[in-house]
């Protein structure tokens, strides 16, 4: 058995045994949904419907209903796309990178944040699709044999790389998530009594048996998928940043973009995990599995990635001056002091200044403060993308083409709509899926459970051997 130092704070609090873990995680699925769940899903459902309506209106009328003009031809759509992809980075990072580093605390958050990742990437993928205008020929982005002769997609183009990166990331993330879910679905299948639920979870659990060979394969599949997903996480947001970095627009043409985008993505992803998990642990009474120490670990990651992002902002500013390129220097000066100064200020305050408060242990272990800060970071990261995209192009090379971007109600409606769809999906996940990995939590109970650490665990075998040793 893997031993853990006694001075480490236990990951599972209280006097738990294997059955308690099953009970605690499955209780919300078995019991009736609380009133709050119905209220929330109705509110977000209305948002989602409004968003769908805006999309239908957009497709019927054309991209002209957005606030774009001939100078600012990319604005909210791509900002939202990058924002959602960024949020979709924490899930795979938690389950893949933290698995490779053997960070057991990931088990409190990996399942729910992978779900968040999948839903966020779905929302991200929506924006390029609707921006095409003709949604029904969306499959043209793939290199398919066609009747037009040698009509291929341009493999030199970062936009095409993005298609491959996002679709690979989405499908691999989905498979990774589902393979982890199968044993837990089997646990629910073997417990529920209602015939419909039993049948549904029976189908979802794929006939999982939990025999020794299956578990042997399960562990290798998880490890190899984690190994594959780790470079994938970094590649996806690097490639998203190539959409901008390989262009020749001052403000976009920067080699710092890949690492800067990746750390920004992790930063915003963890902020969204905090927002969702703080609500989830309270509503489902999962404080024993996701306690202040977990929140603190995540806050430390937010602080680290937030500082990397801050350094990147300042490096960008410095290099724009140091390069001696007037266009580049002006692009950054204009960002900070031009007509969009307010968005730059919002970005700097939310992303650079506010995470520094996490140096204080008192603040980073305070749950209310964490919740507020997570929201601030999410707002800040939205502004970061807005600043990069809109302020770099709103002042064209020719001053007569200078312009200002005003979002229309369709721009806002679609963004609000994706928030609605995202939260509806998330609420459905929380209601019907196990939000913590039941099987994985049981593997760390003996090494990181509070009761076992103090020496009064459950099960004869453990108790006897423990007494003998002491």
């Amino acid at each position, binding site marked *: *058995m893997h031993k853990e130092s006694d001075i480490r704070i236990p990951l599972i609090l209280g006097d738990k045994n*294997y*059955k308690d873990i*099953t009970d605690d995680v499955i209780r919300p699925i078995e019991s009736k949904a609380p009133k709050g769940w119905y209220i929330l899903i109705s509110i977000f459902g209305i948002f989602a419907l409004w968003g769908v309506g805006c999309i239908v209106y957009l497709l019927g009328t054309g991209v002209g209903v957005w606030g774009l003009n001939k100078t600012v031809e990319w604005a909210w759509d791509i900002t939202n796309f990058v924002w959602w992809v960024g949020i979709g980075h924490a899930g795979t990072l938690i389950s893949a990178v933290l698995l490779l580093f053997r960070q057991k605390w990931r088990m409190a958050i990996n399942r729910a944040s992978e779900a968040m990742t999948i839903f966020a990437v779905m929302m991200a993928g929506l924006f390029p699709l609707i921006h095409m205008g003709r949604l029904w020929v969306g499959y043209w982005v793939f*290199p398919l044999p066609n009747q037009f002769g*040698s009509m*291929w997609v*341009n*493999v*030199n183009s*970062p936009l*095409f*790389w993005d298609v*491959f990166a996002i679709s*690979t990331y989405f*499908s*691999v993330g989905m*498979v*990774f998530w589902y393979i982890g879910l*199968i*044993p837990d679905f*089997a*646990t629910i*299948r*073997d*417990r529920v009594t209602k015939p419909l639920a039993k049948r549904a979870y*029976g*189908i*979802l*659990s*794929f*006939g*999982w*048996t*939990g*025999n*020794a*060979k*299956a*578990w*042997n394969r399960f*562990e*290798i599949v998880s490890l*190899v*998928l984690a190994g*594959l997903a780790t*470079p*994938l996480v970094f*590649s996806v947001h690097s490639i998203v940043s*190539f959409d901008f970095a390989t262009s020749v627009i001052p403000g976009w043409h920067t080699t710092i973009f890949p690492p800067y985008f990746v750390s920004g993505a992790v930063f915003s992803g963890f902020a969204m995990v905090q927002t969702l998990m703080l609500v989830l642990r309270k509503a489902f009474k999962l404080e024993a599995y996701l306690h202040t120490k977990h929140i603190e670990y995540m806050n430390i990651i937010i602080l680290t990635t937030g500082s990397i992002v801050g350094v990147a902002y300042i490096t960008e500013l410095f290099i724009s001056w140091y390069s001696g390129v007037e266009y580049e220097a002006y692009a950054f000066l204009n960002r900070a002091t031009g007509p969009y100064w307010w968005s730059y200020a919002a970005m700097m305050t939310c992303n650079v200044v506010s995470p520094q408060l996490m140096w204080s242990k008192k603040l980073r272990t305070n749950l209310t403060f964490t919740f507020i800060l997570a929201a601030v970071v999410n707002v800040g990261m939205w502004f970061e993308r807005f600043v990069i995209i809109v302020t770099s192009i709103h002042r064209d090379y020719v001053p007569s083409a200078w312009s200002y971007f005003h979002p229309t109600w369709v721009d806002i409606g679609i963004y609000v709509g994706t928030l609605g769809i995202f939260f509806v999906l998330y609420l459905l996940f929380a209601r019907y899926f196990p939000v913590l990995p*039941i*099987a994985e939590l*049981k*593997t760390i109970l*003996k090494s990181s459970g509070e009761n076992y650490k103090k020496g009064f665990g*459950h*099960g*004869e*075998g*453990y108790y006897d051997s423990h007494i003998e040793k002491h």
Partner: protein
Amino acid sequence: MTDKVIYAMYDDDDVTKEACQSLVDNGVHVADVFSPFPIHGIDPIIGIKHTRLGIAAFMYGITGLLLAIIATRYFMVSDWHGINIGGKPNFSYLENIPSFVPILFEFTVLCAAHGMALTYFLRNKTLPGMPARNPDPRTTDDRFVVEVRLAENSNFSLDQLNDMIKETGIVEIDEKTIK
């Protein structure tokens, strides 16, 4: 051919492991162990070989890489021969390869991950709609079941096996006749 199967149930993973060890030491062949989570270190005791899924994933990855190389070469160099796109050298695959790296990488990962996942489902016989095949519903909760088959232990009688198993700290024992 009918066969008798003994299911011995335990309530702790370490006890299960010790029980398997003592049974194997006595010369009993343990057919399988069902548990709610992976019991580390039990595979060598009951003689389960390490899975080769990792090798399979590597092969799928190599296949994906080759396919991506063939495809990008065909699209960009062979079919679109000599078209100048952004000054990138389309006449030579080797010189143009840096801008294909993202696609080569993503497609390698795509094939390795999905190939491995599919193989995993097929090898485990876990597919949508398959019936539950664990001997007791509690093995996905907090119970551990060791399966011993009479046909695989021809040196022992059913009673001898039962006696040996009963000495190992079981909580329940069950016998079944299977076809």
